[in-house]
């Protein structure tokens, strides 16, 4: 008797609910996360803003789309930690001994984390608007930009799930996350225009998926050519989701060896 599709969906909902309950019961998890991002936003804008040349536009206009886009990149490290934390506890044995869908535990984590990103993004947008940021391209493209961020966030969350399930230990998960997240965020068009970087770093920044994401989001928020970067980021996001979803679920099933 295989688990049916409706049972799989029900299992995923239960797992998602369980993770969201944790955020609601421990609101400090979210509160500090929001505070950290607001503090960083203020610091980057007012400390570096004056020094970085962005070609005439206000730095907040250049910077905010990139900044809120990178919150999902950094946020994904928390997914690795949460997975490793669950795996280090006895509860995972209970889940694995139940006749529930093998995909539900991981998928529930990804969905609840996507909800967490969405909440965080909305707050960052509000803070940005207070600091003087303006969407210059209308409501529809602004929503599309946020959707792109969340889609890419989901892709990175699957990568993070795979890392969490591979290292299986909370501290390693934390460090392992930062190893790949820092270069992705900084060697991209998030904070500074790529053309200011040395040649070899420009090469990396151009293939770095964070660059097309930030470029797309910036174009959607401020106006500009979306076509150049949109297909790239969609290809990256879908490719990463498919690849790491398969890898992570396979590794979850293999925990039994």
């Amino acid at each position, binding site marked *: 008797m295989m688990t049916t599709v409706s049972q799989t969906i029900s299992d995923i909902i*239960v797992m998602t609910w*369980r993770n969201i309950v944790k955020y609601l*019961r421990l609101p400090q998890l979210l509160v500090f996360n929001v505070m950290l991002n607001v503090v960083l936003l203020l610091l980057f804008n007012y400390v570096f803003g004056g020094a970085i040349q962005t070609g005439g536009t206000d730095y907040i206009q250049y910077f905010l789309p990139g900044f809120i886009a990178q919150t999902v990149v950094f946020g994904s490290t928390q997914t690795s930690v949460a997975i490793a934390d669950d795996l280090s506890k006895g*509860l995972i044995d209970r889940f694995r001994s139940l*006749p*529930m869908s093998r995909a539900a535990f991981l998928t529930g984590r990804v969905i609840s984390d996507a909800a967490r990103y969405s909440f965080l993004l909305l707050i960052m947008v509000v803070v940005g608007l207070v600091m003087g940021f303006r969407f210059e391209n209308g409501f529809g493209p602004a929503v599309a930009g946020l959707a792109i961020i969340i889609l890419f966030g989901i892709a990175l969350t699957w990568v993070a799930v795979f890392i969490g399930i591979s290292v299986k230990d909370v501290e390693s998960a934390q460090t392992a996350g930062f190893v790949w997240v820092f270069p992705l965020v900084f060697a991209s068009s998030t904070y500074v225009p790529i053309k200011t970087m040395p040649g070899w770093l420009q090469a990396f920044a151009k293939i770095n998926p964070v660059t097309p994401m930030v470029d797309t989001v910036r174009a959607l928020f401020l106006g500009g050519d979306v076509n150049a970067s949109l297909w790239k980021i969609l290809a990256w996001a879908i490719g990463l989701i498919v690849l790491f979803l398969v890898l992570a679920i396979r590794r979850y099933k293999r925990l039994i060896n």
Partner: protein
Amino acid sequence: MKNPDNKTPGQVECKEASISIKGVSKSFGKIRALDNINLEIPDGIIFALLGPNGSGKTTLVRILTTLLKPEHGTATVGGFDVVQEANLVRHIFGLAGQYPAVDENLTGRENLVMIGQLYHLKKEKAKNRAQELLEIFDLTDAANRVVKTFSGGMRRRLDLAAALVISPPILFLDEPTTGLDPRSRLGLWEVINAQVKNCSTVFLTTQYLEEADRLANMIAIMDRGKVIREGSPQELKDCCGGENYVKLRLFDRNQILKTSELLRDIAGANVRISESTGEISIPALDGTATLSAVVGRLNAEAIQISEIGLQQPTLDDVFLAITGHTAEEEAKQVKK
């Protein structure tokens, strides 16, 4: 997935709650955790797997509960193969492991409802079952508190309740009473006995001979990944260290040899000395009479006793009788 006898999970009859283990082996690196285990456990009984830490008990439970794959051999639980038909097996057992496996951030009730939903019970049914279990396990007062605030004993009870959500035909309990206070232990024994009245099979592991003796119809003793003896509690007692012992300790360890010589008059060749603890033990064939004989004999020689008493045979005694080494030594060796 094959389902040869049209067995319906969740409605398994008594006769289908048996467990069969054939030639199961498992290694972790160089350590041979299980070495060719063969066991046939009939339905409707309490089976106890007895052995020291590191003897392989938990590894065997993990294989039977589909958490680990055997390297060699096969095992069926309720007639279903634990590897080929893992998902069918998962419908018919409940598991309470060595450490409570409950969600710290959910309330007691939410935990049980969640487990019910993951067994794909209707929400209403899952809620009713949760309420029943909270009552059985005396957790109604704490039902709506987050598990984080639970005491160790309460977590244990909740964990056991979680194992019983579907009233499983087969219940696996891995060292269920380790770390429990005596009152909770008695309560747990009652629950285990009640399970069997519902015609379930209970598979439990324990380090305590007394526990196996009190509960089980069938006992297997494990040592270094092997089953070294199996049988009813009576059979094991008869074969291996079944009698009570007089155990004693001296003030002066230098007198141990002399004392053991003296005790040969009472016990013949059956004087045992534990090198590590300095304990001397002899079979108490005449109960308290043997005890007073020992005290009288040693007093007459002015040998001072620091501690003496009648003792039930322990796992160590059975172990010593079967393997020639104690369970404690065994655990140390495993760690190395």
